[in-house]
């Protein structure tokens, strides 16, 4: 049956396996290339929607009339770059949101998103991804506990710098029963985010060169 397609002498030649492997590799890469072309716009759109949903959680809708996901500025800090999303109303930046990271318990990183208003006050914080122990460290999620909501309204001066820690370290924020490392890292990371905002405030609020677009 297959003899029409493939002569035995070809099949038994030394080069056949190589050709076969190469051929299959070519075939599947073409298929993946085509699929990538077909799905990549959809995937980008879905990711943008996801980001939009996340940003809405940390910056309330009344702060903006633009599309913060499309109004971004990238700040280079050390070896990492931070993308900042600006929420504007009537052209003026009212609030910004950006990601910040914290070392988790174990080897993985936690990623947080924070929303900060013009005056450096926190509008909201959410943990986007983490690998903390279920039942112990995962109380940083809103679905498990309200803990993360306690940061709303805080700023670098409220509590004063010495208070920016968990209670065990003399700060004002609660730790969880059985887990201190996770909340400690989150508190530190949020404080770092606020300091980042304070350092780059003028640029983030788009007021670096006199407060309007050229």
């Amino acid at each position, binding site marked *: 049956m297959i003899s029409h397609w493939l002569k035995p002498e070809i099949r038994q030649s030394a080069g056949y396996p190589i050709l076969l492997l190469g051929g299959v590799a070519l075939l599947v890469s073409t298929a*993946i290339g085509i699929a990538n072309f077909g799905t990549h716009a959809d995937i980008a759109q879905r990711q943008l929607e996801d980001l939009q949903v996340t940003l809405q959680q940390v910056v309330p809708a009344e702060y903006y009339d633009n599309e913060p996901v499309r109004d971004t500025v990238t700040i280079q800090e050390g070896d990492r770059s931070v993308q900042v999303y600006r929420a504007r109303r009537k052209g003026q930046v009212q609030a910004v949101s950006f990601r910040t990271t914290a070392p988790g318990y174990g080897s993985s990183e936690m990623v947080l998103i924070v929303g900060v208003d013009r005056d450096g006050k926190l509008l909201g914080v959410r943990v986007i991804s983490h690998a903390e122990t*279920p039942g112990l460290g995962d109380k940083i999620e809103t679905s498990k506990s309200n803990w993360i909501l306690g940061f709303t309204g805080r700023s670098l001066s409220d509590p004063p710098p010495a208070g920016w820690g968990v209670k065990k370290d003399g700060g004002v924020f609660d730790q969880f029963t059985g887990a201190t490392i996770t909340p400690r890292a989150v508190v530190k990371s949020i404080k770092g985010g606020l300091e980042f905002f304070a350092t780059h405030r003028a640029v983030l609020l788009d007021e670096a060169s006199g407060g309007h677009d050229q």
Partner: protein
Amino acid sequence: MNDYRGIFADGLWNNNVVFAQMLALCPLMAVTSTATNGLGMGLATTAVLLASNIVVSSLRHWIAQEVRIPVYVLLIASLVTLADMAINAWLHELYKVLGLFIPLIVVNCCVLGRAESFASKQPVSAAAADGLAMGLGLTLALVLIGACREILGSATLFSHASLLLGPAFTFLETTLIKDYHGFLLMLLPPGGFLVLGFLLAGKRVIERVAEVRGVKEEFHCSVQ
């Protein structure tokens, strides 16, 4: 003539991927913290198994013995990549639940195992049936283990099923005990091993009972 009944009996019970072949244990431990996750992973794996069995079976006359394993790996890896892209683009809610685990299908040895031991020697229709049967058997095992762990671990069943199957399936989501404080061990990997161990023992008992009954019936027949 192929014995489709036999193929399905093998896939679902006699030669079940998890309960008999003891394959696919790594993704099993990772995803079965809830029944819904198990179902999603099972269905995604079934799709890949079906596709890989069909492709491998239809290429079986061309594939040279010496390079068959690399060829299978290439084919399976690209099928999984395609599934990953498709789910990300068009079933995004599901992707958010399962996203991390879909690439894991590549290392699920049952896919390569079926390609090597069945699809490479059988006609396309039988290979497709085998892929489907093995996939469904795996799905069954994943849902069963997921359900046990979810009930013991958080006293819910099929939580977030509507994310996976659409809003019409919200009725599946049950909370068995309100204010349950959770049994953490069941949600962590050791819980998976414990549940798997008990289910394996249960399967043995059932088979044992069936065997004893079979012997008795035979005995009755011969007496008559």
